[in-house]
Structure formats: C-alpha cells, structure tokens
C-alpha cells in the first residue's frame, strides 16, 4: 500500500515515516511540508533519520494525493481542513490525527467524509482505543454493583489533571452506564469524605519521574475486582495505530470513522 505523509518533517511526521518504512506491505510514496520549509527538496527518508528513499520532500499536496493510496495527516488544524478537501476531491482516504480543530475545520472534515473514507482520532494508540471501548462495554455489562475508579500516572512535567485520556475513560464508563460523567465524577478526595457514593466514578492522579502515561480502570465489587491497564512506553505509540488505520481504510466506503471502527470494537 502506497502511503503519503503530509507534514513529513514534523515530530509526528518523522515517526510516521520510520514506522511506515519498517512496516510490511506498506511503502512511503511521498511527503510534503509547508511552502518555504527548509526541508523542501531533502530526501523524505534521510530527514527522518533513515536511509534515503529516493523521494524528495515536496510542497504540492495535490500531487502527493495523486500518487498514493492513502494519506496520513498529523499537521495543523487549518492544513488538515484543506487536506480533507483534497481527499474528497481526489477520492483518496485520509487519516486525520491532528487535534484542536475549530468548528469550521471540523465541518470541513465531516463534509469531506461524505465523499471519501476518513479515520479521525485524537489519540491513535491501539491500546488506548481498546481501553476506551472495553471500558464502556464493561461498565454497561457489570452494572452498578461495581465501583469504577480511574487511576493515572504521568511524568512530573505534566500540568493538568486528570489527564485527557483519564477523562475520556471516565466518559466511556459513564456512557456505558447511561449517565453524564459530570454528574458522577469524583475528582478529588481529601479529609472526611464519607463513604463512597454509589455510582460515582472516581479519579486518582499520580505524578512523577518520566512516566510516559499509565491508565488503570478498576471495576471493584465485593470480594473481587477487574482492572484494565494501559501503559505508554514511547511517543511513537500513535504510529502503530495510524498504520492499522491505513491498512483498514483500503476499499472502505465514504464515512467518518473512529479508531474503534478500525479495531472492530463496534
């Protein structure tokens, strides 16, 4: 499968280029950067720290779309909106990993998805998406007799708590139970808390060292407990998911898909 990487010189772009080059059945068929980028004309492989691939970094996204089976986009919101338009126009599926899209940019992606298959996900990690899907399913299945708690740990530099992924897991659990997270979230416990309120979804936050990110969802009832855990080890974790999405997209009808669709988690 021929894959194009827009924004191939960014931090995400370089990781994607390496992952695609190493994956069986996949081939890097082009890379772009913004006009005026100092990377233009350099070898796509070499600039990502690989052996040269014999393809120069270009600035013509349209030409890139013409040359590939699927495009992977981890760039900036305005660029992603434009790329979605090109994907629709040229019938080339797109994987959109860019976050922070404004309403009009998101609408551009959704409009494009009426004409071409697009996978969009704020977090492409296979493991995190698996956790999100199974948390919702388990919360629905196990019912209210199980107390749900979400524990996360991240490196000492992280400034917000709970992490975005922890909150997403909380929303998945709440959805499984058919409630709104805001109505049941217990984000802080300190002092005389009283007994745990039935139906609460509790959060606990740990910070320290260089932990890349760990999340545990706990379902606890009398005398037994189930835990589902995800531990990120490297920052390349999203690339494996993007690759799976690329292979999955082959031949899919137009539509806006999530990583849960890609992983078959319904």
């Amino acid at each position: 499968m021929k894959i194009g990487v827009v924004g191939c010189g960014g931090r995400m772009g370089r990781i994607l280029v390496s992952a695609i080059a190493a994956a069986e059945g996949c081939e890097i068929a082009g890379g772009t950067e913004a006009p005026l980028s100092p990377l233009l004309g350099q070898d796509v492989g070499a600039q990502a720290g690989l052996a040269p691939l014999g393809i120069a970094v270009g600035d013509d996204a349209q030409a890139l779309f013409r040359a590939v089976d699927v495009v992977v986009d981890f760039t900036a919101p305005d660029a992603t909106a434009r790329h979605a338009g090109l994907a629709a126009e040229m019938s080339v599926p797109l994987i959109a990993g860019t976050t922070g899209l404004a309403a009009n940019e998101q609408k551009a992606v959704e409009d494009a998805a009426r004409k071409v298959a697009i996978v969009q996900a704020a977090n492409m990690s296979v493991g995190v998406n698996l956790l999100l899907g199974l948390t919702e399913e388990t919360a629905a299945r196990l019912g209210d007799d199980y107390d749900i708690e979400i524990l996360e740990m991240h490196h000492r530099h992280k400034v917000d708590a709970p992490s975005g992924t922890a909150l997403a897991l909380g929303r998945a659990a709440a959805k499984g139970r058919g409630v709104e997270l805001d109505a049941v979230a217990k984000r802080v416990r300190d002092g005389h808390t009283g007994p745990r309120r039935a139906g609460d979804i509790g959060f606990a936050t740990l910070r320290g060292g260089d932990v890349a990110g760990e999340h545990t969802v706990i379902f606890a009832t009398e005398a037994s407990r189930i835990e589902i855990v995800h531990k990120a080890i490297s920052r390349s974790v999203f690339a494996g998911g993007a690759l799976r999405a690329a292979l999955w997209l082959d031949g899919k009808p137009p539509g806006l898909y999530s990583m849960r669709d890609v992983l078959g988690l319904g």
Partner: protein
Amino acid sequence: MKIGIFGCGGVVGRLLVREVVATEGCELSGGTGRPGGALIGVDVGEQAGLEPVGLAVSDDPRALMAASDVIIDFSLAPATVQHMLLAAETGCAVVLGTTGFGADAQAAVDRAAADAAIVEAPNTSPNFNYLLVLIERISGVLGDEYDAEVLSMAERRLPFAPSGTTIEVAKAVAAGRGVNLDDVIEKVRDGVIGPRPPGVIGIAIVRGGRIAGGQRAIFAGDDEVVEVAYRSTDPAIYAKGAVAAARWVVGKPPAKYSMREVFGLA
C-alpha cells in the same frame, strides 16, 4: 431441584453446602467425602457449620447421583475419572469444579459428555469468566506483535501449577490469536533462556497467603503495554457460581458446556 455435592467437606465443598441450603428452589440431596476419610458418616450440614440436615457424608457417589438432579463436584483430581464414568452410566448432570486432572480424566470428561450434561468449570466466578471474554477480545485486537504473558497468583496450599484458572487465562489469550495453547505455551524459564521466541505465551506462577488469588494477562508491544487483571478475595463466589451453573444445566441435553455459556458470555 436436588443438588448433591462431591467433596462436600472441602473448603469450597462446605461453602457449597451452605449456598445450596440457602438457595430457594434448591434442595440438598447429600454429599460425599474421600472414602475412608474422617468425615464419612458425619452430618453434611453440621460439618459445614450449619444445623444438622439429616444427611450423612457418604462414600457412595453412585447412590448420590441416583438421588440427585445434578451433582456439583469440588473433590480432588484423583476422583475425576471415576466420577465421570458414573455420570455417563447414570446420565446425571455434573458441574465439574475440580481442577488439576490429567489427560486421562479429560478424556473421561469428554466421553461422559456424550451421555450426560457436563459443565466443565475450572473457575465458576462470573467476574473471572467475564475476564476471559475481555482477554480474548484484547488478544484478538492486538495480535502477536504484542508479547503475551500470564502472571498468576494463588493461595499457598494449591498443590499443582499452572492452576486450572491460569490455563483458562492462557487459553483465552491463545483463542484470541487463533492458535492452540499447547503449541505456544512457555511454562518454565530458568537459567540462560535466550531471547523470547516470537508468538509464545509465557506463564509465571506466584504462590502465597491463604485465600486471595489473582490473574494478570500482559500484552507488551514495542510502544505500549495493555494489561487486564482480576483479583478475588473470597472463595464463596465459587460456590455461588457453581450453584448458578447447576440450576442452568438441569434439563440440558448431554454435552460439554462451559461457564461462559452458563453466564451467557460465549
């Protein structure tokens, strides 16, 4: 419904006596103990910490089968072949909770299932059986690019390894990948073992304490790790699950059934 208990004087056996007596619609038809053991002739209820129920612990499993709609067997592995031959002979349904038996007993179970309804139930906890569903899903989504390991802890008195529960976990991992556990299981690591062969399912065994047990399936990828874990702290859950299985299996045609079928998780 008349329920008889093989091994009624054991840790789980005594809990079973109490559970059957306490469950509406169930009637205790008797219990057996090890022939020649100290419990033979003692009141089944009394030895389980209840008021006398007017039934003496017997050493005649055939007679108890004849007097029962279903047998719950939590005796010990050396008795399994005999118990299965009797099930085939009498057609009496059995919930087989005994674990740790060998290939000959396994063959006897499979043969008995032609003439009697047998629930093969190496772990009767509903949570544990839901865990197996999760493990199989996770294993299927992640595939063998993620190294799968099973870590298992059980109480100090368990005299064999891996336990039936551990094998269930490892089988769920193998089933998710569509492989046969016997072909990929790696049970012992000691000394210079060389790098981990791809595709194996490794098992590590921990023993200690009196009651608590836990299972953890670990899926370790290059960039992320997914784990699912289960802990239980009260064997009463096994008795509850076994009685649920007994009620479920009465009236079912001869065949081998699993606890996942009993709980509607298959």
